[in-house]
Each structure stands twice: as structure tokens, then as C-alpha cells.
């Protein structure tokens, strides 16, 4: 299937709080106001120290549309996610999906965060069918961050074992 690179995505950056010329909130043709809200007031944009043992970093992308998403979680010693940050380069829906993802993972345990589904994200943001892959990407980012955290914990445990023996 030929992939349209002439992007479906807005081609926007997440970091700066740029104001778009305000879209009129008419039906059908625009981003949903929830998506616009996340775009204009992004939550949890930023970076955590990826070298820290308590930080899991998930970096995912969709080469088909050029989206790249980085999601980081900070987990305390009880296995609860206390902080989350994201950086996304992609369309408004991708930014909103990852922003929402960081909001949702905060306060959850590592196991609870695994239950977040792309369908929930898409439903919350009222994503149209053509943008469902953005919510999928956000789910993948969460899982990648959790997997990275798990790996670090396992490595840490192995180090402790070999140090004591």
C-alpha cells in the first residue's frame, strides 16, 4: 500500500505553546476541542533523567507518517508511577494522545498502567478513524516505557545478586 507522506499530520511540534489561528468549532472538519486543548495546553511536556534507575523511557514512532513519540515514567520504590513526561513530534492527535497518556499513568502502579488501551485514549479524545493509529502509538509508548523500567529493575537486581556473592 503506498503510504501518503504528504502528511495527514499537522506537522507540529509539541514543546512550544504556539497558538494556532483559532479553529472554528464547526462539526466534521476540525480537530476535536479536547485535542486542541491538549495541543494548546500540553500537560507534562519535558524530559526525565533517562539514566536514572527509576525512570523508564519509551521511544516509538510511526515512520509512515513521521510521528515520533517519547514517553518517560518515574516510578517510586513501591512501584507507583509518580511522574511522567512526554515529547512528541507529530500531528495534533499524536500530541494529544501522548499528553493524555502521561496524565493517565500518573498515580497508577506499573501493572495498572499496562491496562491502558488505545481504544480508551481514542474514545476520550474523540479521535476520528483516520487518527486511531495515534492512540495506538501512545499505548505502545506506555508499554515501551514500562518495559524499559522493568528491564532496568531486573538489571539492578542482577547486579545486587552478583555483588553480594
Amino acid at each position: 500500500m503506498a503510504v501518503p507522506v504528504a502528511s495527514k499530520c499537522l506537522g507540529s511540534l509539541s514543546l512550544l505553546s504556539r497558538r494556532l489561528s483559532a479553529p472554528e468549532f464547526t462539526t466534521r472538519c476540525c480537530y476535536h476541542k479536547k485535542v486542541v486543548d491538549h495541543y494548546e495546553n500540553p500537560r507534562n511536556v519535558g524530559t526525565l533523567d533517562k539514566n536514572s534507575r527509576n525512570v523508564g523511557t519509551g521511544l516509538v514512532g510511526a515512520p509512515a507518517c513521521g510521528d515520533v513519540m517519547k514517553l518517560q515514567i518515574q516510578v517510586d520504590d513501591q512501584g507507583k508511577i509518580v511522574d511522567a513526561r512526554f515529547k512528541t513530534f507529530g500531528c495534533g492527535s499524536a500530541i494529544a494522545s501522548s499528553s493524555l497518556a502521561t496524565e493517565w499513568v500518573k498515580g497508577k502502579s506499573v501493572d495498572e498502567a499496562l491496562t491502558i488501551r488505545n481504544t480508551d485514549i481514542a474514545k476520550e479524545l474523540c479521535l476520528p478513524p483516520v487518527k486511531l493509529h495515534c492512540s495506538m502509538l501512545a499505548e505502545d509508548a506506555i508499554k515501551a516505557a514500562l518495559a524499559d523500567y522493568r528491564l532496568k529493575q531486573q538489571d539492578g537486581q542482577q547486579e545486587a545478586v552478583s555483588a553480594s556473592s
Partner: protein
Amino acid sequence: MLSAKPFRAACSSWAVLMWTNRLCISKVCMSTSFSIKDTWHCNRNVRSLLKARGLTCNTNQSSTLWNNCSGRSKVSCWSCKQPLDQTPAFFCVSCKVVQPPEEGTSYFKIMACDYTFTLDTQQLQKKYLQLQRLLHPDNFSQKSVTEQQYSESQSALVNKAYTTLLKPLSRGLYMLELEGMHIKEGTESAHSAFFMELMEINEALDEAQTPEEANKIGQDTKGKLAELTEQIDTALRKGILLQ
């Protein structure tokens, strides 16, 4: 405010070209381990490819994708029943009547281009205009309904062939399709180092303070694109030579 759009588009192109490139190279590596008659010439691959496009096919026609008319079944003009000796035959040589498009003809054959990744787009455009001057339905408004329908199909097919072959990305993907490979949209099988690189480029672009800095990043990305395009061309060429 700096416009990041063109560079994002270049980034996207690069991302996909890179992904395409990786698949090309892995395909070339795969094919070297099989005997030539097993893989790419395999009718099975071609048949499944044609099926995927919803076309009917027969074993004879599959070879038209690669070769010039060796062993293809003879097609005759629907009007005067004379054999059509060319591939593709837009018009009958004898009675000059427009012919329906032949299923399974590759876009390269339709646009009379060599089956390579590097293409002379000017030549392609010339051929496109030439063909549309002959085939466009406006030329057939006084002709029979059948001829009008045939000219419509031919014209649409030429449009499709042209737009697919014009851009390197769609051309590369089409060539992979012809080799039986499809790239799905998704995040699987991509390396995190690749995403890291993409992330860094995007961040650098975001932090650029002047148009010159942004342009430099754009130039670097274009350079990478050109390099990848060359690599893809080499990989595809190698793969074709292995047939």
C-alpha cells in the same frame, strides 16, 4: 516563527525511505541464499501479488512484469481481431481503435521506463503527456460507448502509473510490491536507534534560532535522503540482477 513543515516532510520521507531501504537490503540478503529460480521469478509470488491487487492472472501474463513478451499469450484487437503485438498496446496497429488495458502490466512498462529506482522524471512527464494526449476520454466523445469506456480505463491507469512512479517513495514501495513485499503501517520492526536519531533531528530543528540553522538541518536531511535513495537503488538493482 520558523516553518518546520518542509523539513518535517523531509523527515517523514527519510523515515519511510529508511524503512523501505532496510527492507530492500534484507530482501537482497535473503535472495542470495536461495537459488535464482526459487525466489523472485517464482510465479507464486507474482500470482499472490496480482491477487492482492484484485486482478485475475494467468501464468503467462506474470512474465510480462519482467520480460519483453517472451511466452505471453497472444491478445487480439477486440474490433478487428488482429493480434496486438506490443506491450502495452494502447491502440490496435491495424484498425487504430483504442484497446482495453491489459491486466498485470507493470507501471514501468506502461510509461516505457526502465525498471530501475532512479528514474528520469522529465522523461516520465513527457511520456505521460504524450499518452494522455492520445488516451484522454475527451478525444473519444464522438466514438462508441465501448471505446469511451476503454479510453477512460486507459487514461486512469496511465494517471495511476504516472503518480506512482513520479515520487521516489511511491516508486520504491511499488517496486517492493512487485517483489512481493508490503510495508504495513505500524511501529513493529523499527529500531529504537532510528527513532532516537529522528527525535534528535526534530529537537535540533525545534531549538534552531535562525532560518540559517533550520536550513542547515534541512540540507543535512536532504543529504541523508539522497544517500538513502542511492542505497535503495543499489539494493533494488542488485536484487533485480539476481533474477
